[in-house]
């Protein structure tokens, strides 16, 4: 917090809370990039690493849950502190979901057949890069408490959605032309879906970052397309 509290332990609690969110975010980011690598290369070891590391994300979520409950009970936070704690609680839930989606992608790594010649596979990493960048940037926005950046990230979600649409159509036509690849292509449909969900959750986190910073709900704004670049 910019202003220090009379009770120093409260500051420590908030710092710890933010630290846990940061750690969780770092793990989630890594999970996305590594699950994608596992998917593209078919590396079982990497997929297993992503799946194993997801346990740590789950444990962190629990730790954040406990800490927020403790803060509510002991410190009864007000105003921006209250928003900070609520945002942390919600963000941790979303990061946990992002970790789950990444884990799910990693689990599908070994079900792609004929990886070298399977053309649609080359489309996925580009989408993952956009979704991963959204997660990376939203966590930076959280660290910087930057509402303008949060708005910008929300606008990027349309790009992921468009990507999902195009991959979906591409995969469907690929399946019609090459019925043999339906198993692999169907797996990729789920992967693309997971990435699209990751983008949605990054948007939700951005909304919470905006809420924590401005006390206003980004989702409620009448016209999202015409949001001013600087928060009022």
């Amino acid at each position, binding site marked *: 917090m910019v202003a220090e509290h009379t009770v120093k332990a409260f500051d420590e609690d908030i*710092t*710890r809370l*933010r*630290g*846990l*969110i*940061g*750690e969780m*975010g*770092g*793990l989630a*980011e*890594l999970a996305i*990039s590594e699950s994608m690598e596992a998917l593209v290369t078919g590396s079982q070891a990497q997929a297993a690493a992503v799946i194993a*590391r997801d346990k740590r994300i789950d444990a962190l979520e629990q730790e954040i849950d406990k800490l927020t409950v403790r803060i509510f009970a002991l410190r009864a936070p007000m105003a921006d502190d209250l928003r900070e704690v609520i945002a942390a609680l919600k963000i941790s839930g979303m990061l946990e979901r992002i970790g789950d989606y990444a884990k799910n992608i990693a689990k599908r790594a070994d079900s792609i057949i004929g990886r070298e010649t399977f053309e649609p596979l080359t489309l996925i990493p580009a989408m993952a*890069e956009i979704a*991963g*960048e959204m997660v*990376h940037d939203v*966590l*930076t926005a*959280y*660290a*910087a*408490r*930057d509402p303008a950046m949060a708005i910008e990230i929300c606008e990027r979600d349309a790009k992921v959605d468009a990507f999902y649409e195009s991959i979906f159509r591409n995969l469907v036509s690929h399946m019609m032309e090459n019925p043999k690849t339906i198993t692999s292509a169907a797996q990729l449909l789920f992967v693309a879906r997971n990435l699209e969900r990751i983008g949605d959750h990054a948007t939700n986190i951005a909304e919470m970052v905006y809420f924590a910073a401005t006390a206003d709900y980004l989702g409620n704004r009448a016209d999202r397309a015409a949001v001013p670049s600087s928060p009022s």
Partner: protein
Amino acid sequence: MSGRIRGAWPGLLLLSLTMIGLIAAQVSLLAITAVTLIWLFSLWLAGRDSAPPPPLTTPSRLDIDAITRAAMRAAIEPLDVPLLLAHDHRILAANASARTALGPHVVGQDARVALRHPDAVSLLDLADGGSTTVRGLTGARSLWQLTRRRVDANYWMIELRDRNSEADISRAHTDFVANASHELRTPLSSIIGYVETLADAPRQFDADTTARFLGTVLREARRMQSLVADLMSLSQLEAEKHDAPTGRIDFGALAGRVVSEFTHGDGVTRVEFTPPERALGVTGDVGQLEQLLRNLIDNALKYGDSEKPVQVGIVNDLRDHAVLTIADHGAGISADHLPHLTRRFYRADPGRSRAAGGTGLGLAIVKHIVERHRGKLDIASTVGKGTTVTVRLPVTNIAQALV
């Protein structure tokens, strides 16, 4: 100070209440006086212990801290290497390059929030500092090496070293296949174009035009041939990169043989060869060393001034190296191209290189050969004067030189 007086009020209030109570209970006056005195004394003691420390120590410690931090901040600020100054997990200061790399918000943050990457965070947990390479710290493809060093009992310095250029190099290897197929496609499409034209209307062209077309086809086919040959020698070199060559070679004699290849039928040559004073035995691969010399002399002839000679010389330096120098007199190469010359398909002047029949792989092959022979390659050039390539190879047993 006001806090001290305020802090004593509840005590005094309690004291007066107790006294009233004691008087009401008709306790002896002596006992009441004794209780009052003990009470007042304890209040005085408590006041003396708790009140003074804050005004005395806190500001002065803050003062020293502030000066130290400001001084450290000023010291690291102008450095090119991104540096973070941390106390436990908290980032106290970041210099200008670190703020550019990570964003200005990192200052004052918990490192887990500011850096976030699990590998970077686990580095912070190490008791004695250390170093780790982190991928994806500032973006999807970024690569940083983080080093954490202790400054004193409280502070840690985190140094971020940019490894992105190295990541670029490994990416260049991946791009290699794409480049190679592109390089092959260009002559191939030109061959197909000319042959198609001739096949579609065989009688439409006179003999001259046909000959010109066929000449182009032949030249492009040769280009593809040399490209394929170069690619094969490169992959061969890649494959045996780690096994040292075993042949024993008289380097001077070998160079003499290669130089003589560049002599025209009528005995005219632009290559001036200065052989070494005595036989220099080198452990190496005959075919590869010949190719090294051929590529370098060929380059010198191609890019040097066509009127001026190319000097090839071999000497034995004091540190038992055979030093081969190949110098041309020509346009030279500007300094910003020099570090990239040995990269595959890198051309300082693409048009000229292709026109001269270059594959863009010559120096990459030379570099690989030199590395396999545990040698050193050095390219020096002055724009407008010419280029000198120096290859140093370790001299082995001279007496046993065989070839």
